[in-house]
Every structure is written in C-alpha cells, then in structure tokens.
C-alpha cells in the first residue's frame, strides 16, 4: 500500500518523497564478512565472484580514507549505520505491470515509463539494491545488443563479465571502489557487438528509497570494434535527516573504433554521499565521452577518467556541477595518455551558491613515448555570492616533450553591469540570474537529448528560485 508522501525537508527538491519501505530481504546495519557472504549466496554467484568480493572487503578495511576533497564530511560517514543490501522485490519485471505497485508508483512520478515510451531504446530501473525493471527494444536485441542488469549479465554472460569485470577499476584502486567491489548489487551490463550502432539512448535510473541506505551499483559497458552506444543515467533519493551512501563503480571498454557516450544527471537528495569511481579504456581510434552533470548530493567525489591506450583514441569529458547550501561537489576528470597520437578535451563548469562549494580536481598524465598528444583543459567557475567557494586542483604529469597541452581556468561572478543590462530589457533580477546560469551551462546542456536539457534547465530554475525565500 502506498503511503502519501511525507512532508519534505527541502521544498526545492521535488524528488524528496518516499514510499513505505517494503522488502523481501534486508541485511542488518553495518558491514561484515557475513553481509558480503550473504549477498553473494543470495545471488547464487560463481565462486570467483564470491572470492572477488571477499578480497575487496579486505582492501576496503585496509585502504585509508581519502585525505582530500572534504575530510570533515568524509569523516562523518558512519559505515556501521548503513544498510548494505536491500532486496525490494522477489523478481524483476519485464513490463511495468509486473513491478510492485509502490515501486512503479515511484518511477511513474519520476517519469521513467513515459520517457521510455517516447525516446529510449532500453531501460533498467534500480530500486535500492536491485534492478526491478528492465527492457530493451527487440530490434536491438536481435542485433545482438546485450543490455541487462549487472547481476543478470553475470548469470547469462559469465565469460564476457569475467573477462572485463574489475579490469578497468581493480578493487584495490581506492577505498570506495573496494567497498563497491565487496557489496555491489545491480547496475547495468551492456555489450554492443562489432559494428552495431545503437542510435537512440539506453537509460538506467537509480532510486534510493530507504533511510540510511547504501546503493552500490556496478556498471560495465563494452563497445566492440566499430560499435557505438549512448547510455544515460539519472538518480534521485528521498530527503532524510540522516545520511545515505551511494558508491558506484562504472567501467567502460571502447575497443578499436568504438564510440561510447556516458551521460549522467546526478540529482541525489542533499543527504546522500555520492562517491563514485568511473573509468574508461579507449583503444585505437575509439572515442569515449563522459557527459557528467552533478546537481544533488551532500558530497560528490567523482572524476570520470579515460585511459587512452592506442593511437587515435580520443577522450572528451564535459562536466558541470551546481553546489548549493551545505553541498560540496568535488568533481573533475582524469585523462591518461598511454599511447602517441591521442587527444583529450576536458571542460568543467561549476556554479556555487548560498555557501556551496565546488572543486575541480583533475589529472592530465602523458606517459613517456606518448608523443604528438593534444590535451585541452578548461575550467570555468561561477560564484553567485560571497559565501560560496570554488577551487581548482589541476595536476599535470607530462613525461614527453612533443605534446600540446592547453589549460585555462576562470572564476567569475555575475556582474552588476550584466544584470543591469538584462533588467533594462524587462527581465526581473532573478530571471536574469537564472538566464546567466543557464547560459553558463549551455555547453553542457546542448549535449543532452532535448528532454534532458529541458529537465536540467528546470532543475536549475528551481535551485535559483529557492534563493528568493
């Protein structure tokens, strides 16, 4: 039975509602070896995955917390208070009618089935720890495109999963990658066969409903030679007074001549820690694009990366971050040029408001032997008031001489003259500010499918209107 949405703490955040918590299985609070064993046995996983998880758990315990970004916020994470696995339904739906009513209700409110009908080639919808709905257009399935929840991917295509899983981001990479590797559940598995172009986007939607929930989805996308795919993910959660944790691992493999675009609109409620590791490897002439939008969460630490392994590979990382009161978006990008004749472009745009913090944290690494490499990095920050803060932490490690590296960073404020100009055209001050902010994000918005661009502009409008009080 659905309960009416409770009073929301943050009125600006329209996705803060929650449904009554129902589950078929839930671990206790806290992370133990038993929890990891239980997750693996419930999923009836192969032995190698069980061992993978347990080893990762050791890494998690051994790895130190990051000493950067925001140590104050990081040290406030109470790992013993989190639920690491919650199975919301007995089985996955192939139609929305097969999805439990409360869960379907949630996704209806988020507009997912409608978006699916209108402009998506396939959808996975994750609720808490499990994918509760999944679909792919028949014509794509017939061409051999695999789009499954990660757990089903492991069951149905163990050979592909075992070949790539954890190879781009090993469990020991960092504390949160280790955590995810130990308790992962859900996420997407995509394989696009040689030469197949998936013309319209595949989407995954991640929803946390329960309080103090930890969501640890795991996504693996492989685009075989000459294949192309655009994957979009969105995420929201209810607003609670205590914290939840989202820690995903996303691995992309773009084989020779492949093209992967991965778009994220992150809109978690402001009590969610969003600590995500995203990395891609790009082989000869492959293109990987991360289009990464961060609006929500309490603390986001996310630096989508591309390893350019063979000549001709190209990386484009375009990210925007909007940080309001009590938020810190520590976002950025990493490009690692392993091979010569590789190119990368990083564009980062951040806006801070009402005391919010944004940081650009980036790495450009060019290995010895990677000659004729081109890199461009551009970071623009816009501060909407005196209380807000923006920092840039670019790291360049260039071991070759024959490379072209451009770096440009700007910090700006909305000028009095600019506002006066716009107001003298009849625009109210706040509308003028919103227009400036939308314009600032335009480079990002124009890369989104129209429906998402409209949604993003609307979200920004809500954030801007929130300041009127």
């Amino acid at each position, binding site marked *: 039975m659905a309960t009416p949405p409770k009073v929301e703490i943050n009125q600006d955040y329209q996705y803060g509602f929650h449904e009554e918590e129902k589950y078929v299985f839930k671990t206790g609070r806290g992370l133990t070896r038993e929890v990891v064993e239980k997750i693996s046995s419930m999923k009836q996983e192969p032995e190698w995955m069980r061992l993978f998880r347990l080893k990762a758990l050791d890494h998690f315990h051994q790895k130190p917390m990051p000493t950067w970004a925001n140590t104050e916020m990081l040290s406030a994470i109470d790992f013993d208070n989190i639920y690491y696995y919650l199975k919301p339904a007995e089985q996955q739906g192939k139609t929305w009618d097969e999805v439990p009513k409360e869960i379907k209700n949630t996704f209806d409110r988020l507009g997912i089935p409608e978006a699916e009908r209108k402009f998506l080639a396939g959808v996975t919808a994750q609720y808490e720890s499990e994918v509760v709905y999944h679909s792919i257009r028949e014509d794509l399935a017939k061409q051999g495109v695999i789009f499954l929840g990660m757990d089903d991917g492991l069951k149905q295509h163990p050979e592909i999963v075992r070949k790539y899983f954890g190879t781009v981001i090993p469990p020991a990479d960092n504390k949160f990658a280790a955590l995810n590797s130990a308790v992962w559940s859900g996420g997407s598995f995509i394989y696009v066969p040689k030469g197949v172009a998936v013309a319209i986007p595949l989407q995954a939607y991640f929803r946390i409903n329960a309080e103090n929930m930890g969501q640890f989805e795991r996504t693996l996308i492989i685009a075989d030679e000459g294949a192309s795919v655009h994957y979009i993910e969105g995420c929201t959660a209810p607003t609670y007074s205590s914290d939840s944790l989202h820690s995903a691992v996303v691995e992309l493999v773009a084989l020779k001549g492949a093209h992967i675009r991965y778009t994220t609109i992150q809109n978690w409620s402001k009590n969610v820690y969003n600590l995500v590791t995203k990395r891609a490897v790009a082989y000869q002439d492959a293109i990987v694009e991360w289009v990464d939008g961060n609006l929500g969460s309490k603390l986001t630490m996310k630096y989508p990366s591309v390893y350019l392994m063979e000549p001709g590979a190209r990386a484009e990382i375009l990210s925007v971050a909007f940080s309001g009161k009590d938020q810190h978006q520590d976002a950025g990008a990493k490009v690692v040029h392993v091979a010569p004749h590789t190119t990368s472009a990083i564009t980062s745009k951040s806006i801070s408001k009402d005391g919010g913090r944004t940081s650009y944290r980036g790495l450009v690494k060019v290995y010895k032997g990677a000659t004729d490499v081109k890199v461009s990095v551009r970071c623009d920050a816009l501060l909407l008031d005196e209380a807000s803060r923006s920092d840039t932490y670019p790291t360049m490690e260039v071991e070759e001489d024959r490379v072209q590296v451009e770096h440009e960073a700007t910090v700006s404020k909305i000028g009095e*003259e*600019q506002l006066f100009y716009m107001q003298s*055209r009849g*625009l109210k001050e706040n509308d003028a500010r919103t*227009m*400036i902010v939308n314009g*600032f994000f335009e480079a990002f918005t124009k890369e989104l499918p129209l429906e998402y661009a409209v949604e993003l502009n609307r979200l920004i409008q809500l954030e801007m209107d929130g300041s009127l009080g």
Partner: protein
Amino acid sequence: MSDAPLLVIENLHVSVEGKEIIKGISLQVNRGEVHALMGPNGSGKSTLSNALGGHPRYQVTGGRILFQGEDLVAMKADERARQGLFLAFQYPQAIPGVTVLHFLRMAMKAVRGAETPSPKQMRQAIKEKLALLEMDEAFLQRYVNDGFSGGEKKRCEILQMAVLQPRLAVLDETDSGLDIDALRVVANGVNRLMGPTMGVLLITHYQRLLNYIQPHVVHVLMDGRIVRSGGKELALELEAKGYEGSDTEATASGKRG
C-alpha cells in the same frame, strides 16, 4: 495611453558614489520628437542615460523624472523597461551561452506581458526587424554580444529596440565604434522605427550621427548642466567651433534648460 508628456526631467541631480555628476538638468521630450544631447567627455552624458535606465549605482539626489506622467525614479530598471523605456547601451554586455533569439523572446515576454505574441508571430516579427537592419538570420543563433564586433553590438542593440517597440528610446553613444556603413544602417533603422507615438533621446559626442537622424532639438551638456538648447543647426555650429565656445557663450548668455 496617458496624455502626460512622454518624458519630463525637472531639475535633476545625480550622484555616483557620492560625487555629483548631473547638477540640475531639465528637459522635456514629447511623442514624435528626437532630441539630441551632445557634450564632451565627462560632461555627464552617460550618467544621465544610466540614471534614466535605473542603474542602481546612479543615485538621484534631487529633482524628478516623469515618464508618461509616472515617477520613473521609484521604478527598478526592469519596471522601466516594461513601461516602455529602452536604453541602447554604449557598452552592451555579453551573456555567454544565451542566444540572441532566446534573449529577444524572453525580453519580449517580459515587456509585453499578457500581450506577448505567439512564438510563431514572434519569430516573424524578429525576422522582419532583422531585414530592416540588414542583418543575417544566423545572427539569432549567436550568444548575446559574445565576441561581437563593435558594429555588431550596436546593431544588436537596435534590433532589440526594434523588437521591443519602446515608447522612449535612449541611445547612448550608439554611433561610437561604427564605421560609416554601419552608422547608415543603424540610423536608417532608427528612422524607420520612429513614429508619431515614440520619442528618442540621442546621446552623442559627435555630430555625424545627426547627418542621418534629424533631431528636433539639440541640447549641449557641459559639466552636468545643459548650457544651450536649439535646433539642429546648433549641432553644426558645435562641429565647426567645438564645445569650448559653447561653454563661454553659455556663461555669457545665461544657462537655459
């Protein structure tokens, strides 16, 4: 429409950061009239246009401004625009990421309110004005004043004026930075838009714009005061003699305003 005169400025004093720049100006612009306000650098021309536009840093410390009978000073810049005042800027501001088309639409919506035409009509109206100003349609997809040449900025100002159809247009040094072809196009645009219900206040340092736009009245501004007013021949006289002479003459003949 109100029967009150379009613009009445009475003994206006304006300060910027505590310093008085406009020291008692009186002026009346009626519908259908073009007034030229001329003066050397530092005479207060731009201060007057900013004060008329409602720039928050320009403080009216005395006198009043009545626009169609309403107290203009009490209104914010955006309210003034909605009442039918338009200020063409000397230094138009860039708005990166916002296209000219979007900006024009939003401005039209803001200014026209309930009488906003449909998107289709809007587009049609914008196209017509573009043609009038000999501008390419591709211009609409560029970001407002972002990377524009001086001439493009000024044309963009006149395009906005054309689309918004104000009752009173204040053109602040619109001729500066324009080559002779651009000047002709801009002036033709203003002439075509000018009608019996509209008033124009041209603020300029040089006489040359007045070769293209015929003013009904010319005022000379020196050190925050209007020192002379006259017909269009006054502009020619200033061109020949310079501003120095008018100051002396003003002192001799007494200030009028």
